[in-house]
């Protein structure tokens, strides 16, 4: 399976938050089956998607991730009974917030990949990598970080007014 390797100008950084029982095992299966996929993804293992705090997703984007993948067991298959349901509900709400903040939701993907779905893992990772590559780098947080080199002085009239009122 020696496919032609094309060089790209931009290699996105993808961070995957996965649960250890389903998706991590699915990614292991992709390995044992010697499937090939882009090398852009870095996997962080959690016991359960229920453990994944939305703050981690924000943190990942802040740290320069161009795409984030969250993946766990299929609904009903959670090793911890219902962790993935809590995750699903939490992320449904979190997506709205993320959109409000200004993060393009195309950069964030949720999926269910079971321990038997090595092929699906490859598909999901490859698709997300391609999509994010076409979108280009995520610059919003970097720009924000530059803007926020804040001196600590209160320099806008509104802030001054608020400060004096205290």
């Amino acid at each position: 399976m020696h496919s032609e390797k094309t060089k790209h100008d931009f290699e996105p950084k993808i961070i995957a938050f996965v649960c250890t029982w389903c998706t991590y095992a699915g990614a292991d299966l992709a390995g044992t089956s010697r499937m090939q996929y882009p090398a852009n993804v870095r996997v962080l293992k959690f016991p359960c998607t229920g453990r994944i705090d939305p703050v981690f997703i924000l943190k990942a984007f802040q740290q320069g991730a161009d795409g984030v993948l969250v993946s766990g067991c299929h609904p009903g298959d959670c090793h911890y009974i219902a962790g993935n349901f809590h995750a699903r509900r939490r992320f449904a709400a979190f997506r709205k917030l993320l959109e409000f903040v200004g993060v393009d939701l195309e950069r964030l993907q949720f999926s269910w990949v079971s321990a038997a779905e090595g092929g699906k893992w490859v598909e999901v990772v490859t698709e997300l990598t391609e999509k994010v590559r076409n979108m280009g780098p995520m610059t919003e947080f970097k720009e924000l970080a530059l803007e926020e080199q804040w001196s600590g002085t209160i320099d806008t009239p509104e802030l001054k007014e608020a400060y004096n009122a205290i």
Partner: protein
Amino acid sequence: MSRIGVFVCHCGENISRTVDVERVAAQVGKMPGVAFATDYKYMCSDPGQTLLKKTIQEQKLSHVVVAACSPRMHEKTFRKAVEAAGLNPYLCEMANIREHCSWVHEDKQEATAKAIEIVGMLVERVKKNRVLPTITVPVTKRSLVIGGGIAGIQAALDIADCGHEVILVEREPSIGGHMAQLSETFPTLDCSQCIMTPKMVDVANHPKITLYSYSEIEQVDGYIGNFQVTIRRKARSVDEDKCTGCGICMEKCPVKKIPNKFDCNLGMRPAIYVPFPQAVPNTPVIDRDNCIKFKTGKCGLCQKVCGPGAVDYEQEDRLVVEPVGAIVVATGFDLYTIDEKPKGSMIKGYGEFGHGKIPDVIDGMTFERLASASGPTGGKILRPSDGKEPKQIVFIQCIGSRAREKGISYCSKVCCMYTAKHTMLYHHKVHDGQAYVFFMDARTPGKAYDEFWRRSIEEEEAVYIRGMVSRLYQKGDKIVVMGSDIAVGVQVEIEADMVVLATAIQPRTGADSLAQKLGISYDKYNFYSEAHAKLRPVECATAGIYLAGACQGPKDIPDTVSQASAAAAKVMTLFAKDKLEREPIVARVKEAGCVGCFACKKVCAYGAVEEKEIRDRQGNLIKVVAYVNPGVCGGCGTCQATCPSKSVELDGYTDEQIVAMIEAL
């Protein structure tokens, strides 16, 4: 300051072929906090582990990262080695540079860069790892076995013979499973009933076995050593304690013509019935869908004739809760139904070969019932349509199996052998008959198996035709079977009296919902997954749950019995200890920050969160905080992600550790 040791494994060539391991070690060695970094051919080998232990002591390492295969493979191995060297095992982490890197990438430069990043991530993580004490929990030395086929029976008997209590749960009114339906068994042609029924009786008489027949698993709570299993005992309408098994109720029942599932619908049974005469327990059950009393309120004959007064129309389903320490899953298989998609099954029958339309096209199990001395024909091979003896019979193999385009790509393993057996049984019973077999390959690995198959050809005169059947249709009272003989390259046409299809083995319908109750994983066909295909073939990834028989994959009787005994041995290994060490990956509440909102309690699937009062020395209540019972906590961490004040932390997966990993990228 931490002194981290990094050990990069070559895994023979598995990693070093695509990852420049020396460069990884050199690069990681420069990272702050890393005191030592090296690479080695096989870290998991004895010299590799010795190197690890020696280096920990010589270099006075504080933390260890082993960059090798998946932690699912060898985390335990290395944590044990680290512990032997005097370090807390939870100060060791594995970086997965094989399954997640070297095996899935080809470009050496790219893979090496990725490996360095992966190891870097784990180095940052391990710095934040804390010493975790092992938690010990008690072990309930009772076992649950789900499924009363040969697998479940064997496992139950082995565990019970060792002196431990066993709860055996069977969905049907009698134990015995598929093996009780078989006529004779390959490769010895032992009568299946003769070797099966004594074991069934052993189960019924064993003082350590509690048999719950006609029962199903409702709910499973808890964890290894401490499961709480809720069992639904379906209403039998007959009191098992009172019933003597005299059978007069069955004789008097006015409803007589209900197809008996046990006889593959060939024989008939009454509405109050035992599936077969040798049933264990020999207590009848009322089929409420067909009973006149339940349908119209009239009749009640069985109750009138029952001497001990065991018939009870008012009986309801009962729920029983049993505490057990280990669970053996032995739910077995269903045969692939070619003509329809069974309810709840994801595999669709492909509706060929006239099965379900032509009455004399039957499946292998139906043939077993025809050939069985206790079957509906008393062991005579007779056509279901007109009761005549078939003089030409065609067997077609690989129905459903090995047909990727039809949904099943695996080999069902037993069909080649049972078809050979069928040709023999047929020849023994119909001396002037001729058997033909259409086959793709004959797969006969196993002790005395190939000899058996050859015997069916050489001594029992079965004609094997290599090739598949292209068309099959009814012509008068014959079935015309058209196929190709690819060995000779000619078309074959046989006018058969009966056709037997060797349909595929698939997991029981509903296997997935049981798996969800148990929290075990299953593959795309719903076969249950073992923890490791080669080295842990009878254990589930979920601790304390073991597999036996065809629920894990197609298996013949010898393999099933071996696996059942192996599962029993695993259960006994577990029960050999009074206390069990469990992973200390549990949630811990930081009481200072906890405001007692109990959002964690609401999301906890285990009921591990308790309310704890904090009082001052005078006994005045200061506040109520959450407390996580470490024995009950499952370790999912949902509470931590939910806690608004970040006052609960999952050991081993703290925010600190995860943020350190994200920041390392």
